[in-house]
């Protein structure tokens, strides 16, 4: 059975690594997360999916965002959506391998909902996604 929050809440994954995309898809499946999951391989593509002309309907209210991507990296994408009135309240969770303090500080200055380091093992990643799911079910996310 698909719950109400799963029916209405689109999730956008912005990630250029194919294996990491599969990581998220499998972890969602194994945690019974049935929310529509949309994939963009960089910030430019993600903006295209969010803005008015080529929208993902309804607009994703949660974004899982990698940092190191070509064309437009995660931090640049985050700056762009925080400057946009329609997109600035989107909940963004950084999902990255970067343990660099500069990236963490910059992301938090841009009001991320969470900064998550991609775990080494798949089991730990499953657990991370399960924790995220519990959090998403608990919180109120603005439209």
């Amino acid at each position, binding site marked *: 059975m698909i719950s109400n929050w799963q029916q209405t809440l689109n999730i956008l994954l912005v990630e*250029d*690594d*194919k294996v990491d995309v599969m990581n998220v898809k499998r972890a969602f499946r194994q945690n019974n997360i049935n929310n529509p999951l949309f994939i963009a391989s960089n910030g430019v593509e993600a903006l295209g999916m969010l803005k008015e002309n080529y929208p993902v309907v309804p607009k994703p209210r949660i974004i899982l965002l990698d940092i190191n*991507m*070509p*064309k437009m990296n995660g931090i640049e994408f985050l700056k762009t959506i925080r400057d946009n009135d329609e997109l600035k309240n989107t909940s963004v969770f950084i999902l990255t391998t970067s*343990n660099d303090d500069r990236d963490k500080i910059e992301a938090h200055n841009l009001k991320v909902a969470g900064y998550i380091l991609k775990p080494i093992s*798949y089991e730990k990643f499953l657990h991370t996604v399960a924790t995220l799911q519990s959090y998403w079910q608990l919180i109120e996310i603005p439209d």
Partner: protein
Amino acid sequence: MSTNNPIDAESEKSINDEFIYRIVHDLKAPIRGVQNLVQWIKEDFDSGDQQAILTNIELLDYTTKRIHLMMDALKLYAELDNMDDPKEDFNPLINIGHIISFHLKGKQMKHEITGDLNTVVLPTKKLIICLREIVKNAIKFNTNRHPQLAVRVLQSNQSITFHVKDNGPGIPDYIKDQIFNFFTSTEPKEGVEFIGAGLAIAHKAAKVAQGVLEINSNSTGTEVKLIWPTE
């Protein structure tokens, strides 16, 4: 490169530490990918999902190839410092012509080599490595419908200068200050070819030979200037 100045030694150590941190960080991603794929193949084997197994095996194949390429590039980068590099004949028309032909691989691209094309005698190994990476980039990333490559060679008593100019899309602004960093690429991580090591290797080869490598790039193309000492 060793130094007796403690401040230089300290900043050199810091640069090396940052380099090692970045390399380890970039290598971890595909290695993590391999670990995950092996686990998924085991899970899909248990559940009998043949299609998923085949997909994961293909991904495993390309990920391990990518790791090989990354390690080969690192090895070459490390070898540049102490590379045996005897003096040999270098003919710009022949040597650069070979590099261009090899990397065109059937791609249609107008190209020319002009300037001072006399044979010179100089250490050629690092020079050819450097030119190879510059030409490879100029060919690979040129998405112009009518791609062109122009190489001009100028010789003086002390050096030989190469101008390698293409009419490709240019290097994007967001990456310009990182182009000599290892594993920095404008392409997504799914490509086996585009590991982002070529210009880092070219830059180091030039530096070790006490040459100069400069890049000017905009939306109409990229020009690489390489000055290589002949003395």
